[in-house]
């Protein structure tokens, strides 16, 4: 088994008047663990179904290993899909499930059985082949689905939120298992999820989608630290957002005039004076002015403390700055007063703030 690269070239998908996927280009490298992250309805499942061949793009091409896939149905592509609900065949035994793809290819029964056992061993299910899928636990079913998909020796494995049916603990366990299987087989994994934790921890690269468009592609670090759109900035992780207009520019930094004052941040979009802008600051980059020593940060504002939540290693502070809610993570250290109330001065460094052209935020 070896992975192949997948390329979406100018692909568009329309259903009647509704455009599910706007003109998109996407290159997934051979053997990479690639995630497509986005809220439900963003078009990520549509992309997956285009790659697997259940639907044909309205325009543009899909190439796998450099070959144009147009006109080839799901049973004629070097892909295998793992469905959200796994879609194990309930009336077949586990090994028959795993061997179904081989049965479709006319492999004789003894060979099928042998191969199924090998694959079951690969996913730690040796000796479970005779059971029915309903006799397995959630995590085991998950692994059967993976083995069944791998049996057809796909170059690309497509996973449609396959972990969403599992409970939290099992989900986290399966993350590392899937990653491990991907490493062992070298198959290209395309993983669809709305769970940023899944996408960021498992993937080599992540594409973030919103409303039918790919907004950003990059490694987990890039996505988190250098989001390129307001949507990506707010969809992945938490943000404090200040709206305003660019009032001045200074060596890659932009000064934004907001209702709470002027803030300086990294000019991520190359904005000019007068442009509508948003300043993004992560809660962990916001701090109380005058604590922890050090120089006072360049950007400061006053806010009312409204509540706090103890998270253990840090404290989640909820603030209100003239009606704008803010969140601040404060390290839970000895210097932190047990009670912090009333009006406080908070601030952030300009290199911790990102200025982007104003746009849609994620709802969450």
């Amino acid at each position: 088994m070896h992975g192949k690269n997948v390329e979406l070239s100018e692909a568009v998908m329309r259903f009647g008047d509704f455009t599910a996927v706007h003109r998109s280009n996407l290159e997934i490298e051979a053997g990479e663990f690639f995630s497509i992250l986005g809220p439900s309805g963003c078009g990520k499942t549509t992309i997956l179904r285009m790659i697997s061949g259940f639907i044909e793009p309205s325009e543009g091409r899909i190439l796998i290993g450099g070959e144009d896939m147009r006109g080839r149905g799901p049973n004629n592509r070097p892909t295998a899909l793992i469905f959200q609900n796994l879609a194990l065949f309930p009336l077949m035994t586990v090994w028959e499930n795993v061997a179904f793809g081989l049965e479709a290819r006319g492999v004789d029964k003894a060979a099928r059985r042998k191969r199924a056992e090998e694959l079951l061993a690969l996913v730690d299910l040796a000796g479970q082949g005779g059971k029915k899928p309903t006799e397995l636990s959630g995590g085991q079913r998950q692994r059967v689905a993976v083995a069944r998909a791998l049996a057809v020796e796909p170059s690309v494995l497509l996973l449609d939120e396959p972990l969403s049916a599992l409970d939290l603990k099992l989900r986290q366990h399966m993350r590392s298992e899937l990653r491990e299987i991907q490493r062992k087989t070298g198959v290209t994994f395309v993983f669809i999820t709305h769970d940023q934790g899944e996408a960021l921890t498992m993937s080599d690269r992540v594409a973030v989608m919103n409303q039918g468009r790919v907004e950003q592609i990059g490694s987990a670090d890039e996505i988190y630290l250098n989001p390129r759109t307001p949507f990506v900035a707010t969809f992945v992780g938490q943000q404090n957002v200040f709206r305003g207009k660019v009032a001045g520019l200074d060596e890659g930094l932009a000064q934004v005039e907001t209702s709470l004052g002027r803030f300086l941040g990294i000019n991520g979009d190359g904005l000019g004076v007068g442009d509508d802008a948003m300043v993004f600051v992560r809660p962990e980059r916001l701090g109380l002015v005058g604590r922890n020593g050090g120089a006072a940060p360049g950007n400061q504002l006053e806010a009312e403390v409204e509540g706090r939540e103890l998270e253990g290693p840090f404290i989640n502070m909820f603030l209100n700055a003239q009606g704008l809610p803010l969140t601040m993570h404060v390290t839970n250290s000895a210097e932190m007063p047990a009670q912090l109330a009333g009006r406080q001065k908070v601030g952030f460094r300009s290199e911790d703030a990102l200025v982007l052209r104003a746009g849609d935020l994620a709802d969450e």
Partner: protein
Amino acid sequence: MSAQSSENRVAQAILNGYLAVFFLYMFAPLIVMSLAAFNAYDYPSVTQWRGWTLKWFSALAEDDRILIGLQNTVVVALGVIVISLPLGLAGAFILTRLQSRWTGLLYAALVSPILTPGIILGISTLIFWRNFDVPGGLFLTVLAQSSFIASYSMLLFMARLQRQDRVLEEAALDLGGSNLLVFRRITLPFLYPTIATASVIAFLQSIENYNTTVFAIGGDWTLVTEIGSRFRFGLSPVINVIGVIFVVLTVVAATLYAYYRERERKRVLAIELELRAMDRQARLAAKRRGPEADETAVPLPARA
């Protein structure tokens, strides 16, 4: 509150009384009919009691017309199963997958035999086949019965198909299965229980049918039309014996079915308990594996 509950109590009492009367209504005829099978009197009766006897059972065993009728009944019922199941299946596949503005009309046409009086189904079949010089008989009876029993099987198959997980078909296609293989390995096995149910229902409806059969049967006879003609030409308690046999068979079948269901339910429950235990162990194992698997919130990449 107390007014409410006393109202409820009165209503419950009325309902219980009603249920008792209702089931008396349901079972009194059965009891009367069964008793007459054991009465030595020559005519079916429970009021003219001439002592207990089993002679009507042996009389039944020697009654050739009844036995031939029984045989014909079974032949017709099997014929009905063979014809109406494929038709019902085909109709169900089309109606569950055809998206057209004609689907509603097709549906109405395919269920219409259920809503048509049985005698009319028999008559129209008789008239239709007279054009081909096919007289009434077992063959026409099979066709006439199939016209509406196929509709019943179709409804059963449709109900099942609507509960089918379409993703399973997609999954099988994705793994390289051809339409035929998917049909054979996924769709048909999914329908097996319904095929069994539909066969049983078709069989029961066929052997029970009188109104359609009496028009299509011609010179032949089934058990039911034979009973029907005996109402005119003299009855004997042999008829009641047949009733008793059917009641006993039904009770036995229902008991076996209930027993089987209960066993199946217990088996499923046991498996579920076992699975829950397995999942719990898997979670514990995941926990032991270390903190890396124990993150709860969004895992944050290392700060730059």
